[in-house]
């Protein structure tokens, strides 16, 4: 039995965070949450996490993207696999018609749109964790 994996959610929607958390905790993950990008970045710096679940539209605007790019510049933090969970299409669909575009900022990242089916969520999380582990093994 492997060690319990630690996940961090950075999302400004308190209700959505509660929902995500209950699904992930039920699947035996340890889950922390930050409700804005500032607190989120601080949490990532002060504690080790195995995976990050990241929202896009927060604070002043699409700050999730800004945060992902910042993490990617940090040699240590860029190794965290990131699952971007966004409602951007609903939030500002009038801006551009079309789908949210996966920006691919981090070595291991994936994008899903809200609302997320619990099964899809858990599949994505374990897939990303495996990919991160494989990458780590490769580097070693």
């Amino acid at each position: 039995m492997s060690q319990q994996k630690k996940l961090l959610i950075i999302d400004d929607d308190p209700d959505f965070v509660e929902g995500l958390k209950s699904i992930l905790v039920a699947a035996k993950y340890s889950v922390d949450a930050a409700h804005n990008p500032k607190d989120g970045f601080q949490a990532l710096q002060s504690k080790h996490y195995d995976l990050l679940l990241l929202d896009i539209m927060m604070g002043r605007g699409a700050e999730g993207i800004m945060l992902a790019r910042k993490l990617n510049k940090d040699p240590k933090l860029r190794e965290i696999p990131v699952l971007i969970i966004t409602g951007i299409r609903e939030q500002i669909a009038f801006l551009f018609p079309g789908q949210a575009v996966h920006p691919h900022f981090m070595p291991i990242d994936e994008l899903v749109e809200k609302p997320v089916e619990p099964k899809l969520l858990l599949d994505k999380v374990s897939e990303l964790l495996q990919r991160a582990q494989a990458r780590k093994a490769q580097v070693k």
Partner: protein
Amino acid sequence: MKTYAYFPGCSLEKMALSYHQSAIETTRMLGVELKELEDWNCCGATAYFHVDELLAHTLCARNLAMAEQEHLDVVAPCSGCYKNLYFARADLGRDPDLAEHINYALEEDNLHFTGSSAVRHLMEVFVDDVGLEELKTKVTQPLDGLRVAPYYGCQILRPRKNHEDVEQPRFFEDLLTAIGAVPVEYALRLRCCGGALILTSRRSALSLVRNLLQSAVESGAAVIATACPLCQVNLECYQKQVSQEFGTEFSIPVVYFTQLVGLAFGIPPKSLGIGSELVSTRDVLSYAAK
């Protein structure tokens, strides 16, 4: 000759063309060149802040970065554009992460923002950069006895940029005095004209316009002077609608400060865009052509 990167803003292309024309004519006489930014884009107005502030700042940063390429300070005649450009530069200056992120977007247009170009309102160019003493030397037709209501409006003053007096400013009055006009004192000179509410919350904006017009007229002003295209349009073009809504009978001309300065400099009214207003400026002109 001092040269600025000139950011006219969307309104000055057509709706406020007379502001553009009079700005060019008057600054030329002061030995100032307004060099239009080659491919400027909208500053984002207020609407962009309703969606994404990072995007709003990006729009401004593109304009600022173009001015930096030319090593020129930026001058904006519209108070809304001025406020947006000013605070985009300030916010990027104090938040390196934000500046880095926006520069990443600017790469797509081969631009880079550093903050090296300062942002000025057109009126600051007259009052601070050129200076009123220098300006007075160009006055050939002082507007003696013309009673003018200086209308500051909002964003030229607020939010506070650095050191200026936001409660009791005098620079507009001083400018009018320098061209021989008589600035009248009236209570609402710093109050809002309603801005874009004229389109989105019409009744409330019309009531603000009505109060302003009333205050200016009661003070005995023959004309209202503005330093912002949105204020000019609200105060001038909606006088008829105010009258229909409130049963008033306003008919007071509303001009740009640059038009008054131009008249005092002896520039022909037509070159200052005079003739495109909805409320006649005949009485104002009689003071200039003596």
